[in-house]
């Protein structure tokens, strides 16, 4: 593999797939991504969900988190019934008189927010620790990796449950718990690719130039470990959303007056046997669509970013 001079190493410079003359790497990657129709579906769904989640306060007929707008006399209405306030409950209401459509839009917002933010933090923290450990090697690396092993040997849901049982409910608390249970994945992933990259000539060259350690680790080593990280992070967003939904379903997690998708499903679960299917089915469908869309995108990214699979 030919290497550019160390001083002009950008993230793209050492990419395994090299850009052909006259065609930018991003474009090549994009066109590679959209090679399959499923990738279109995944990306399209994801964009759609993001747009409705962000626009929820403007498009939802009701603010489901404002208790003054709810009326339990409108509780458990079937889809299509009219509200006392005049609008129609297209997806019905739950037992608190919450419009399910609004609740799903807002819930989606919370679920995506929790998923993305916790992933960003976990990824930043985990990747920094992982790449630093790999570069340092020796005892530091062994120690960090044993901590990672220890953490990965516990089921994530178990740790998160215990933490939240102690801390109580709250979106901030859920995010912190998710960061704590997820950083280890990134540390492990980054360390793997950093170990390979560490032995390469460009790192050696950077060392010969007596560049500061932190510069080598974060400017040279880390950018070259990004592709697998992006893939893991994308899939982990879906994982984080599912984890948050599970926690809320189990009665820890977000506050009951600000339900996420998981909590909405739990609320409706009590009524499943009694035929009030809409309370948990529609949030369930929304959750499945969100996770499937993210996973489709993540899978395709993996194919595109993996040098071994390309050509």
């Amino acid at each position, binding site marked *: 593999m030919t290497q550019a001079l160390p001083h002009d190493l950008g993230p793209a410079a050492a990419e395994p797939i090299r850009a052909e003359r006259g065609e930018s790497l991003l474009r090549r990657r994009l066109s590679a991504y959209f090679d399959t129709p499923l990738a279109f579906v995944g990306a399209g769904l994801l964009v759609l969900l993001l747009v409705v989640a962000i626009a929820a306060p403007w498009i939802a007929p009701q603010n489901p988190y404002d208790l003054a707008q*709810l009326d339990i006399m409108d509780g458990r209405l079937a889809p299509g019934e009219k509200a006392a306030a005049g609008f129609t409950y297209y997806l019905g209401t739950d037992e*608190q*008189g919450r419009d399910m459509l609004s609740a799903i839009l807002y819930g989606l917002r919370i679920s995506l927010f929790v998923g993305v933010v916790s992933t960003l933090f976990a990824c930043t923290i985990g990747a920094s620790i992982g790449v630093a450990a790999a570069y340092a090697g020796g005892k530091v690396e062994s120690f960090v990796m044993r901590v990672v092993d220890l953490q990965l040997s516990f089921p994530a849901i178990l740790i998160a449950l215990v933490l939240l*049982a102690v801390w109580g409910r709250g979106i901030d608390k859920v995010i912190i718990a998710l960061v704590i249970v997820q950083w280890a994945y990134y540390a492990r992933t980054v360390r793997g690719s950093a170990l390979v990259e560490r032995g390469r000539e460009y790192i050696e060259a950077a060392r010969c130039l007596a560049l500061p350690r932190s510069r080598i680790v974060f400017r040279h080593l880390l950018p070259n470990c990004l592709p697998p990280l992006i893939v893991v992070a994308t899939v982990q967003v879906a994982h984080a959303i599912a984890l948050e939904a599970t926690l809320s379903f189990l*009665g820890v997690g977000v506050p*009951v*007056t600000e339900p996420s998708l998981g909590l909405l499903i739990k609320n409706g679960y009590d009524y499943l*046997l*009694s035929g009030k299917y809409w309370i948990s089915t529609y949030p369930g469908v929304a959750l499945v669509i969100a996770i499937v869309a993210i996973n489709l995108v993540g899978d395709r990214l993996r194919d595109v970013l993996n040098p071994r699979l390309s050509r």
Partner: protein
Amino acid sequence: MVVSRTALLAGTVLACVAVPAVAQELKIGVASEATSIDPHFHNVGQNNALRRHIFESLVFVDAAQKPYPGLAASWKAVDDTTWEFKLRPGVKFSNGQDFTARDVVYSVCRIPTVENSPSNFTIATKGIESMETPDPLTLVVKTKGPYPLMPLDMGVFGIISAQASGAGADLKFKKGGCEGLGTPPKSADFNDPAKAVGTGPYKLAEYTRGTRLALERNDGYWGAKPHWKTVVFRPITSAGPRVAALVSGDVDMIENPPIQDFDLIKKAGLTIVQGLSNRIIYVHLDQFTGPDWKTPGVKGTDGKNPFLDKRVRQAMSKAINRDAIVDRIMGGVAKPAGELLPVPLFGTSEDRKPEKYDPEGAKKLLAEAGYPNGFELTLGSPNDRYINDEKVAQAVAQMFTRVGIKTGVDSMTASTFFSRRNKYEFSAYLAGWGADTGEMSNSIVALIATQDAAPGFGNTNRGRYSNKTVDELTRKALTTIDDKEREKLLQEASKVGMEDYGIIPLHFEVTPWAFRKTITYTPRVDQYTLAYEVKPGQ
């Protein structure tokens, strides 16, 4: 033709013989399993219900918690501080020994010695100063002062056999530690059917923790023999599987079918009965008067405790639409409450009606109290303790928010909730209270009497409400032997507390049972499921 008719007749006779033999087993799916067979281990509903099958008490209470003679055939107050119990002659323990006053003394003596008890029965023996047994069937109990609740207390704990438990010949009651107690049995010893010796209508046959508990009819029972030869209790703690077990015929009867499954159960051709319970669901407001006390979770009051103002408490009571909660959240299976116990229990008044829903009046009162724009509040609530507790809390929060008190709900599993509540982390919380004794003094002492550890007042008064008149009336009632007089005092105490809005009652839980069409059960106020009260046929 003749032959065939005979055959038919024979067949019918056979069928008649065969069917009852099968039907004499009763399988019950219970919502929570007893934590021990030991009748003195844990003073909690499911244990107390099981206890009544095997170990009996001196005084029984009926479905409406009215006391009637049990192992004691009669009792009377000899003077202000002496109660005399005449025991029932001819009662035998399941191991064949006679039941005598010695067994009662032994049981009272053993209660404080039970190890690791999560909640013991000393609450029912604390009033006893001395016990004498002038003859084997007479028990004389002395108390420090007038103690009208003694017969009720005697209905709370079960009697175990002194002989089978290894009591010494010199057994003698002494307050603070009896003489000649020997080595009392450990709680786990009772898991052995040979050691679980009681006088009850059933005997323990088999016990596998978490799976099944089988009882066998005690054929030497002194009272009316129960219909079922064997009874099997199966703990099925999740509501869904419990309903499924009943619908599929795995069990004949279940406790607490969830309200939302009533339609499904009725459609499956099963019966549901409901009975008002002695459990009140209420909201307590922090009324601690400490000068530095910052009510946690309250914002927008400039550091003042808004609940010290009666107008605020009244406004909050008026803001709640109890009928809507009962109708929409409880599916009609509850009763709006105006005081701490439902009529007709002892100490209740017919004319104490639930507060009328009046959001406009509530807003006006808040404005008068100096909160025209309301304030912010966090309402604590358990999410797995009472029927639909978390949903009720949300509905209450919704109603508070409508009159301007912006309310959030902090709900959690019961164990976390109760430990946080006991540390006063909630300035407003939703909880419930079931009055074991089924009379008003129990509820008042627990919920609205001023906290005072010595007489055990205000144990559960975590709103720290304090009203001298309520305390005085209650204290007077607790030392009044005359029933009529005592009831009047308790009615008055309840009225004073309710009119001062010391606590906000929401509703009384209604306990449902579901079972096959071929059996019947009369709902009990104490929520117990008693197999010997389950009768065949309509």
